């Protein structure tokens, strides 16, 4: 049944070489695209000891321990692979040279000596949640998260309002200078902000915004992409609707926010998705204007974190996961809208 579904190709019944290649490529694609993320996800639940292990284990595992009467601490369990006690599962008390002093948990009073090459640690599946919890306790994760959320949400709201107002003016009014303004905005599509890093920094510095979230928000909100996208969409809203609203005593502002804005909702949704993606993932500009760690966004914190030799991979991996989870959830929910929006507008 499943096979006939998979092999249903172009109305031909034969499953030929190109179909094999296609499916080979697709499966390779899944492994290559999701594999690394999955690997990081699995690793993020490992203990530091397990992370240091080479070769690494696939699942997060940790040494199994047992509490044996007469010993204060839990003892690690080993499986004996050779010698006279082969096959037994024993707890190790201590190591003496090449020998390990062990005990059978069932008979705590009897000590057994085993060659250390004759035993394998007994391990179990164990999820190290503390990698995550310590982010909240020891690092200022919530602070960075909040900074990122604040910048993303506020910048997106302002972007949508400012861009839609400008788009409305450019799409629905005839006035002197309209073409000039429109061309200027389109021209800035070609001038990526990366070229103007130095002077933008001066402006931000002069406005006293350095090391505040506004240093990231303000330079980013007047996106030419957004204005262009919304203008093109608003051109398709019939002028009659606006005239009808004007006859209905609506002021121009009311025409904008009661008629045009709700009707431009599909284009606005695309812009919202873009804006969230841009702001959440932005790196170079925040790196320049946010230098105090309490102002760091998640991306900056992650970067600082990885550059810091003191940090362990366990915390870093957990933080990586927490940073990619919001985008992943949004993607899972809105996959269709996102891909359709991007395919239509050709912007990212």
């Amino acid at each position, binding site marked *: 049944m499943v096979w006939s579904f998979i092999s249903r190709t172009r109305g031909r019944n034969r499953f030929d070489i190109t179909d094999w290649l296609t499916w080979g490529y697709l499966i390779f694609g899944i492994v290559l695209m999701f594999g690394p993320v999955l690997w990081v996800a699995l690793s993020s639940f490992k203990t530091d000891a397990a992370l240091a292990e080479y070769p690494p284990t696939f699942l997060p595992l940790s040494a199994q321990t047992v509490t044996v009467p007469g010993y204060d601490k839990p003892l690690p369990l080993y499986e004996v692979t050779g010698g006279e006690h082969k096959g037994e599962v024993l707890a190790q008390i201590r190591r003496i040279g090449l020998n390990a002093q062990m005990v059978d948990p069932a008979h705590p009073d009897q000590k057994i000596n085993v060659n250390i090459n004759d035993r394998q640690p007994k391990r179990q599946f164990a999820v190290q949640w503390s990698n995550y919890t310590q982010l909240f306790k020891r690092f200022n994760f919530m602070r960075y998260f909040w900074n990122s959320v604040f910048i993303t949400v506020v910048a997106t709201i302002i972007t949508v309002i400012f861009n839609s107002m400008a788009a409305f003016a450019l799409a629905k009014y005839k006035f002197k200078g309209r073409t000039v303004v429109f061309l200027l905005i389109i021209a800035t599509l070609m001038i990526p902000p990366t070229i103007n890093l130095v002077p933008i920094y001066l402006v931000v510095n002069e406005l006293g915004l350095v090391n505040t979230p506004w240093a990231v928000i303000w330079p980013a909100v007047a996106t030419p992409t957004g204005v262009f996208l919304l203008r093109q969409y608003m051109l398709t809203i019939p002028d009659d609707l606006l005239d009808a609203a004007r006859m209905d005593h609506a002021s121009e502002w009311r025409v904008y926010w009661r008629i045009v*804005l709700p009707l431009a909702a599909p284009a606005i949704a695309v812009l919202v998705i873009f804006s969230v993606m841009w702001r959440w993932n932005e790196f170079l500009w925040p790196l320049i204007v946010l230098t105090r760690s309490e102002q760091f966004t998640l*991306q900056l914190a992650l970067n600082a974190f990885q550059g810091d030799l003191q940090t362990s991979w366990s915390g870093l991996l957990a933080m990586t996961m927490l940073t990619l989870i919001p985008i992943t959830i949004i993607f899972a929910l809105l996959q269709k809208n996102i891909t359709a929006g991007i395919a239509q507008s050709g912007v990212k």
Partner: protein
Amino acid sequence: MLKPFNSAVQLGYRTAFGLFEWPMASAQRLVGIRRIAWMFLLPNLIIFGAFTFLPIILNFFYATSGSDAILLSQRPYVGADNFASLLSCTNYLDPNTCRRDVFWRAVYNTGWFVVLQVGFMVLFSLLTALILNRKIPFRGFFRGVFFYPVLLSPVVVALIWKWILQRYGVLNAGLDAVGVTPVDWLTNANWAFFWIIFVSIWAHMGFYTLILLAGLQAIPSDVYEAAEMDGASRWRVFYRITMPLLMPTMVVVLVLSLIRAVQAFDEIFVLTGGGPGSATTLILQYIYETGFASRPQLFGLAAAASILMAVVLLVLTLLQLRATRSQAEG
């Protein structure tokens, strides 16, 4: 659950915009319906002016002035010195003979990076788009698979691969298992360069695949049916029908990816930091480090370098404009 949420959103929407109603209506009475358009443009134009137009002009002032002061009034005019400093080499083919040897290494690195990254990325994007364009089940899902990394932040992308590529990482473990000697991927100059290209293809390929897929789906199916009736072989269909009809989209993809590649920075900076040495330092990282990360901050040099980069981008953008125009006409 959803209803109170909806009405709360609506209430917020109404109050937020209602607040502007009175000022905007007064403005409308004041300036008339014709000029009200400018009121709508104003916020966007102010931001544009302050953070786009003004900086474009200021950039030239920075590029022609010296010292590490940020305020223009404190910066002495040095004419074309910054450009001269960047461009002085005894032998342009050998960065070691240049006054700003790191700049020239970055230029050469960027050149190689652009050619290889764009070349292979467009190739793989096309291949993926062609495969996704076949009648396969779960097409939406597979499209999502290839697109997913596009949404990930560059820092996350870099860290994921850093974890995989480290000396005792899973890749080396895998090689070890099949008997290949492990490599220190990111500290070997050639391998590091390979991996920054690989990772940036991995991260951005989905975007271009999507655009190419849209282009493929815009080709009417009756053309293919006609070709099938004419008994054309699969290869013939591909290079006589698919490729010519996809060409406009290909050009757009090519130019877009070129423009992006010239400005590549984020993933590479986190993955290799430009190292080992300056083996993976690209031009934007040079600008960042010259102007912001190192002391003294050589704003003038950074601005001059970014103007040189802008010239390259301008040429590429003009190419794009021509390409989109011919696409619109074709």
